[in-house]
C-alpha cells in the first residue's frame, strides 16, 4: 500500500480562481490586505499503485492537462512541500475522517471501474500563503480557509501513512441505570447524553421503565428523546398554552390545532364539494389539487442551527432534506421547483466585533448560497423564488428556509404501510454523521456548540439523492411498494417509528449498509446520514424493487419488517437491544404546559423629520440590503431546468428587474401553471406580531396575485422561527402571530397546508464571565403556492409601453412602523401595517379579474419602501419613465401637513396595494373590475427613462434617472463586479 498525494495547480497562464476569491474575502473581512497566495486542489490516494499507475489515473481522471499541472508523490515527500511562490507558508485542509466527501467517493468508484486497486481516497485543498505571520495564518485558517466542525487543518507537510476507514465494532449492550437517579441525576444525563429532555419527560421515562421492571438501554432512551424532541413532535406549539394579552385570556389544548389547522378545517367546510385540499398537515408535505390528473405538494423547512456552524453543509443538507419531503409524500411526488429564504446579519459587520464562536456573516451568506446552489442545481430542480433579510440579531443564529414543490398523480397521493411488509432502506449509506441532529436543533446555540455538536453538521451528496429520486418515481409507477417516507431528523428511529406507529416493527440493525466499520447499534439507529428513504415493500414485489434499484446503482436493503404487535423491537445480530411500545413512544410524552403573555408595546405615532430628502431617501431604500438586487445570488441557481419556467425571478428589458413571484409550468404538455411567492417582514414584529403575520400573508398572496394567480386557489405555508419559547413573552408573541394566521387564512380563503416551527433561536456567549444572549427577531415566513389556468395570462412587473396609464390600487395609511423609511432615516415611531381582511379579499379578486381579462400590461405590489420603490423598480425594469401626480394618491387620516403627507404617500408600507399599467384602449374594461375597491389613476408611462413624482401641495418634484436608481439598487450585493463607487 502506498499513500499518494496528487496536487493539482492551475497551469501557467491560467487564473487561480480560488486564490482570487480568498484574497478578496480576506480583504473584505479585514483579515489581510492584498493577500498573495497560491492554491491547489488535490487527492490522497491510498492503494496498491505504483508511480506509473497513479500518474495514469491523474492524467486520465483527476486532472485536466489543458488548464492544470500536477505534482505527484508519496505523502510527506519533499517535492510536495516546495512552495510555488517565494516563502509561502503551507496549509492543508482536509475533510475530517467520516465527513461526506462526494468527490472522493466518486473518484474511488471511477478508479475501481478503471481497474485500479484503491483502498481509500480523500480530497484536499492546499494553500501557500505569502508574506503573512503565524498569527495571521492561524486567523486565516480559522476565519476563512477551513471550518473546524468538518475539516482538519494541517500547517506544514502532511505526515500520515494511510487513510483511516473505521475500525471494527465490539458489540456491547448498554443499559442505563435510570431507576436509581434522582432529579439532578436525570437532568445531568439529559444534558451530557445530548438528549435535551425536560425533567418531567425524564421522570416519565423513568416511571415507565420502573413499571416494566427494568432499566432502559441506551438505544431506547435515544429513541424516546428523538421522538419527543421539539424538532419531531412540535410539543410546545402543539401543547397546552395559557395565553393572555390585552384582550383577555385564552386557553389552548393544542395551539397549532386550534389556530392554523382550524383555519384550514373551516375553509374546507365552507368550500364543501369545491374543497381542493387533498391531504393537509398529515404527510411530509401538504397536498392540493392541481388539474384533472395531478395534485401538487409543497413543504418548507428550516435548517438554522447546522447552517450557523457550517453554512455550506447546513444549507446543502437543508435543501437536500426538504426535497425528500415531497419525495416522501403520498407515494412520492416529483420535485418541480425550490424556494429559499435566508436571514443574515449584515455582510459588512466588523470581524473584530463578532462574539466568540460566530462565523462572519459574509462567510455565512456565501456558504449558504453555495450550499443551496450545489445541491439544488445537481438535483435538476429549479430554484425559482426566494428572499434575503438582514438584521443584526441574526448574527449568531442565521435562518435558512428551504422549500420544495412537487407534482403527484392523483391516484398516488395516499399511502399505507402494511403489516408483514419489509422495512427497506435505500440510498446513501449510514455513517456517524448527523448524530443528535433532532435533539441538537431543538436546543439553544452557544459559543461552545461547535465542539459539542460537531457531529450534527453534515455535507450532502446530491447525486445519491438524484439517483434515489430516479428509481423512486419508477417504483411508484410500477406499484412496487405500499408506503415511503424520508429519513430526516432522527434517522431510522424517526422514519421507522413513524411508519410503524399503527402497526409495530422489528428492525435488524446489523443489516443497514454502513459507510465504514465501527458504528454501534445505537449510532446506526439514530444517525441522520443524508440521502436515505425508507419504504414499506410487500414480499411479492421486493425482488422487482431491488432489481430496479440495482439497475441504476442504488443500494436497497431489507432492514426489518412491519409486524402487527404494536411494539418497536430493535435487534443487533439476534440480540434484542430495544423493545418499546409504540403507544408509549408516540403518546406517552407528558404534555407541555406553557404560559404565554403578550403586552403590546407602547407604539408612538410616526414622527416625521422636519425636512425629508425624498430623492435621497428613495436611493437609500433602494440600496438597503433587504431591497437591493439579489441578482448575484439568483444567477447562481439554475432557475430554468425542467423547462417549465414562465416568469423568472428577474424580468424586464435587461432581465434584471425584481419579479413579484415565479410562475412555473410543472407539466411540459400543459399550459396550467403554478405561482410561488413569499412574504416576511420581521421588522413589523417589533411593533406587533399580529400585524407582522397578517402582513406576511398579505404580501405572499399579493405577490402571487400580481403575476396572475387565482386568489381562490392559493395555498399557504407557515414557518415560525422564534426565540426561547419557555419565556412567556416570547411564546406570547408567537401565539399572537398564530391567531393572526388563523383570521387571515379564513378571511382570504387561503388554507394553510403544511408548516414547521423552529424554536429557541438564540445565541449566547460569555465574555469575562458575563453571559450575553442575542435572540433573533420573531420571524414568520409565509410561502404561497398559487395556480393559473393558462401560463400565457401571466403578467410581469416591468413597464411595457409609453403612453400607458398607471393606476394605484388600495389606500395608503400612516403605517411607517418598521418601515424601510424608518430604517434608513432617523425617523421613529409609527403604526405597523395592518390588513383590512375583507378589503384584501375583494382587492385580490378584482386584480385577478383585471389580469384574466388581459387588461393589465404590468403589475407590481407595494412592499418595502412603499410606492416610490415600486414605481422605481417598474421604471428601470422596463427602461421607461413614469410621470406621477402624488397628490392623487388616496391617503387616510391626513393631518394637514403637506410634507408629511407626501412622505407617507411615497414611503408608507400599507398592505394590499398594487400599481398596474393599463393601455388606453383597455381602461374602460379595467376599471369595471374595481367596483368596491379603491382605484386611482396616478400618472402615465413615458419614454424618458426617469422617475418623476410631483406633488403640488407639498412642492415636491422628485426626478431621478433610471440609470442611477438601478445602479444604487444593484451595487450593494453585486459581489462579482469590482467595487463601484456609489454615493
Amino acid at each position, binding site marked *: 500500500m502506498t499513500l499518494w498525494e496528487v496536487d493539482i495547480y492551475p497551469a501557467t497562464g*491560467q*487564473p487561480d*480562481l*480560488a486564490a*482570487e*476569491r480568498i484574497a478578496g474575502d480576506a480583504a473584505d473581512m479585514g483579515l489581510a490586505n492584498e493577500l498573495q497566495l497560491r492554491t491547489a486542489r488535490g487527492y490522497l490516494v491510498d492503494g496498491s499503485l505504483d508511480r506509473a499507475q497513479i500518474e495514469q489515473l491523474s*492524467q*486520465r*481522471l483527476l486532472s*485536466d*492537462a*489543458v*488548464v492544470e499541472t500536477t505534482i505527484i508523490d508519496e505523502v510527506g515527500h519533499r517535492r510536495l512541500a516546495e512552495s510555488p511562490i517565494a516563502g509561502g507558508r503551507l496549509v492543508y485542509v482536509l475533510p475530517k475522517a467520516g465527513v461526506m466527501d*462526494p*468527490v472522493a*467517493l*466518486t*473518484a474511488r468508484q*471511477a478508479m475501481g*471501474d*478503471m481497474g485500479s486497486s484503491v483502498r481509500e481516497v480523500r480530497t484536499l485543498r492546499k494553500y501557500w500563503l505569502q508574506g503573512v505571520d503565524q498569527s495571521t495564518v492561524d486567523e486565516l485558517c480559522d476565519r476563512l480557509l477551513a471550518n473546524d466542525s468538518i475539516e482538519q487543518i494541517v500547517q506544514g507537510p502532511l505526515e500520515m501513512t494511510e487513510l483511516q476507514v473505521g475500525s471494527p465494532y465490539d458489540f456491547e449492550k448498554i443499559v442505563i441505570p435510570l431507576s436509581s437517579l434522582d432529579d439532578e441525576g436525570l437532568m445531568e444525563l439529559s444534558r451530557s447524553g445530548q438528549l435535551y429532555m425536560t425533567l418531567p419527560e425524564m421522570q416519565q421515562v423513568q416511571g415507565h421503565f420502573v413499571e416494566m421492571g427494568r432499566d432502559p438501554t441506551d438505544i431506547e432512551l435515544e429513541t424516546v428523546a428523538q421522538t419527543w424532541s421539539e424538532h419531531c413532535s412540535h410539543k410546545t406549539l402543539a401543547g397546552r398554552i395559557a395565553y393572555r394579552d390585552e384582550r383577555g385570556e385564552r386557553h389552548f389544548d393544542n395551539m397549532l390545532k386550534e389556530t392554523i389547522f382550524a383555519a384550514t378545517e373551516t375553509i374546507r367546510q365552507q368550500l364543501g364539494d369545491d374543497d381542493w385540499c387533498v391531504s393537509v398537515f398529515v404527510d411530509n408535505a401538504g397536498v392540493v389539487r392541481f388539474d384533472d390528473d395531478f395534485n401538487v405538494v409543497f413543504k418548507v423547512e428550516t435548517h438554522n442551527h447546522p447552517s450557523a456552524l457550517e453554512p455550506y453543509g447546513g444549507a446543502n443538507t437543508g435543501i437536500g432534506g426538504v426535497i425528500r419531503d415531497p419525495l416522501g409524500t403520498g407515494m412520492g411526488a416529483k420535485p418541480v421547483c425550490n424556494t429559499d429564504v435566508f436571514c443574515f446579519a449584515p455582510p459588512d459587520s466588523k470581524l473584530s466585533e463578532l462574539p466568540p464562536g460566530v462565523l462572519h456573516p459574509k462567510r455565512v451568506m456565501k456558504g449558504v448560497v453555495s450550499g443551496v*446552489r450545489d445541491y439544488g*442545481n*445537481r438535483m*435538476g430542480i429549479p430554484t425559482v423564488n426566494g428572499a434575503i433579510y438582514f438584521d443584526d440579531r441574526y448574527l449568531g443564529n442565521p435562518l435558512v428556509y428551504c422549500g420544495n414543490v412537487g407534482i403527484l398523480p392523483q391516484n398516488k397521493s395516499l399511502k399505507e404501510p402494511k403489516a408483514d411488509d419489509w422495512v427497506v432502506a435505500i440510498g446513501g449509506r449510514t455513517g456517524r454523521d448527523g448524530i443528535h441532529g433532532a435533539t441538537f436543533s431543538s436546543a439553544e446555540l452557544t459559543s461552545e456548540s461547535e465542539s459539542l455538536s460537531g457531529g450534527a453538521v453534515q455535507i450532502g451528496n*446530491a*447525486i445519491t439523492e*438524484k*439517483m434515489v429520486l*430516479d428509481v423512486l418515481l419508477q417504483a411508484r409507477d410500477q406499484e412496487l411498494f405500499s408506503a415511503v417516507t424520508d429519513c430526516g431528523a432522527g434517522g431510522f428511529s424517526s422514519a421507522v417509528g413513524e411508519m410503524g406507529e399503527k402497526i409495530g416493527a422489528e428492525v435488524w440493525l446489523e443489516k443497514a449498509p454502513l459507510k465504514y466499520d465501527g458504528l454501534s447499534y445505537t449510532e446506526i439507529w439514530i444517525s441522520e446520514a443524508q440521502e436515505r428513504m425508507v419504504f414499506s415493500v410487500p414480499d411479492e414485489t421486493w425482488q422487482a424493487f431491488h432489481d430496479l434499484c440495482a*439497475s*441504476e*446503482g442504488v443500494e436497497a436493503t431489507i432492514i426489518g419488517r412491519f409486524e402487527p404487535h404494536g411494539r418497536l423491537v430493535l435487534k443487533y445480530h439476534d440480540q434484542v437491544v430495544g423493545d418499546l411500545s409504540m403507544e408509549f413512544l408516540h403518546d406517552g410524552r407528558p404534555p407541555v404546559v406553557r404560559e404565554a403573555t403578550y403586552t403590546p408595546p407602547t407604539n408612538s405615532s410616526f414622527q416625521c423629520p422636519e425636512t425629508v430628502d425624498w430623492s435621497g431617501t428613495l436611493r437609500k431604500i433602494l440600496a438597503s440590503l433587504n431591497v437591493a438586487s439579489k441578482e448575484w445570488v439568483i*444567477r*447562481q*441557481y*439554475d*432557475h*430554468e*431546468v*425542467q*423547462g417549465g*419556467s*414562465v*416568469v423568472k425571478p*428577474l*424580468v*424586464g*428589458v435587461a*432581465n434584471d428587474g425584481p419579479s413579484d413571484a415565479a410562475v412555473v*409550468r410543472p407539466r*411540459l*404538455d400543459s399550459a396550467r401553471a403554478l405561482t410561488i411567492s413569499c412574504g416576511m417582514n420581521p421588522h413589523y414584529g417589533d411593533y406587533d406580531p399580529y400585524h407582522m403575520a397578517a402582513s406576511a400573508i398579505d404580501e405572499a398572496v399579493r405577490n402571487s396575485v400580481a403575476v396572475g394567480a387565482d386568489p381562490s386557489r392559493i395555498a399557504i405555508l407557515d414557518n415560525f422561527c422564534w426565540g426561547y419559547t419557555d419565556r412567556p413573552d416570547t411564546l406570547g408573541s408567537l401565539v399572537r402571530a398564530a391567531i393572526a394566521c388563523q383570521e387571515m387564512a379564513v378571511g382570504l380563503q387561503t388554507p394553510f397546508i403544511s408548516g414547521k416551527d423552529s424554536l429557541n433561536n438564540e445565541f449566547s456567549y460569555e465574555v469575562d464571565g458575563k453571559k450575553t444572549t442575542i435572540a433573533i427577531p420573531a420571524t414568520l415566513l409565509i410561502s404561497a403556492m398559487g395556480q393559473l389556468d393558462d*401560463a*400565457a395570462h*401571466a*403578467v*410581469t412587473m*416591468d413597464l*411595457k409601453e409609453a403612453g400607458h396609464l398607471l393606476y394605484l390600487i388600495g389606500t395608503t395609511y400612516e403605517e411607517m412602523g418598521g418601515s424601510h423609511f424608518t430604517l434608513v432615516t432617523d425617523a421613529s415611531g409609527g403604526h405597523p401595517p395592518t390588513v383590512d381582511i375583507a378589503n384584501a379579499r375583494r382587492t385580490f379578486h378584482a386584480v385577478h379579474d383585471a389580469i384574466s381579462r388581459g387588461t393589465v400590461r404590468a403589475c407590481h405590489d407595494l412592499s418595502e419602501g412603499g410606492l416610490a420603490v415600486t414605481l422605481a423598480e417598474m421604471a428601470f425594469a422596463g427602461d421607461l419613465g413614469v410621470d406621477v401626480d402624488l397628490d392623487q394618491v388616496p391617503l387616510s387620516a391626513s393631518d394637514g401637513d403637506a410634507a408629511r403627507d407626501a412622505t407617507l404617500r411615497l414611503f408608507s408600507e400599507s398592505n394590499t396595494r398594487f400599481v398596474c399599467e393599463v393601455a388606453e384602449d383597455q381602461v374602460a374594461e379595467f376599471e369595471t373590475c374595481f367596483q368596491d375597491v379603491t382605484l386611482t389613476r396616478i400618472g402615465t408611462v413615458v419614454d424618458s427613462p426617469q422617475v418623476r413624482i410631483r406633488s403640488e401641495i407639498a412642492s415636491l418634484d422628485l426626478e431621478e434617472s433610471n440609470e442611477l436608481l438601478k445602479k444604487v439598487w444593484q451595487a450593494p450585493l453585486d459581489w462579482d463586479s469590482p467595487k463601484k463607487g456609489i454615493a
Partner: protein
Amino acid sequence: MKPRVLIIRAPGTNCDLETQYAFELAGGAADVLHINRWLDHPALADRYQILCIPGGFSYGDDVAAGRILANQIQQFLADEVADFIANDKLILGVCNGFQALLKSGILLPQEKTRPVATLTWNDAGHFIDRWVHLKVSGDRCVFLRNIESMYLPIAHAEGKFVADQEETLDTWSNAGQLALSYCTDDGSLCNGGSDNPNGSQRDVAGVCDATGRIFGLMPHPERFVHRTQHPRWTRLGSDLSADGLAVFRNAVEYFTA
C-alpha cells in the same frame, strides 16, 4: 417514419425529459435510457439515428464536469460511437453532454492521449444561469443549418472553452468547426465584454466535428421551445418564435427532408 432518438442519462443527468420533449416536438421519437442499459447492451444504439447526451451533472461533476461519463464512453462504447458516425448518423451533446463529448475525444480527436481542448471553470468561478446571444459561423454543422443567430439560456459552472494550442483554434475555425459563438445583441464580437458569459476563447459556445454531424454546445436549446420560456415574452408579440426548437428540427429533418 420518425427518426429515433436515443437520449442517454447517467446518475445526475437532469435535462433528459425536456430534451425528449423538444425532440418529440420537432418530430422525432425519443427514448431516454440509463447509461447502464447501454453499457449492458452496446448494440442497442444501432436502432437509433440520433444520439443525445443531455444536460445535468453526470456523476455529480465530481472530479470534473462530464469527466466520468466521458471515460465510460471512451473505455466501453468507443466502437459503438464510431459506427454511429460512420453510418451517417447524428450526435448532440448539450451542456454536460458537450463536456462529456469533448472530454471523451469524440468531438475533437485527441493527440495521442493529450486532450486538444477542454471546458473549464467560468471566469466568475461559479455556476451562472442567464440568457446569451449566439451567432452561427459557416454551414458545417448539421444542427445549425439555416440558423444565423439564436437567443438561449446557459446554466453551467464549467463552460469556458480553452484549446491546448492557440493555433488549433485557427484550424477549427477555418474548417467551420467553431460553429456557435457568444455575441452581442447586434451580432458583434464580445470583445472581452460580459456578453461572453464564461471567458471562452474566441467566444466559443458550441463546436462540431469535421463531419458537422457531431455537435456540442453549452447553451440549452431545449429550454426555449415554447414562447413563454423567453425571459421577456410578456414584452414581445405572440409571434415570438422559439429559437431552440430549430436545432432539434434540423436534426430530425436530416433524416426526413
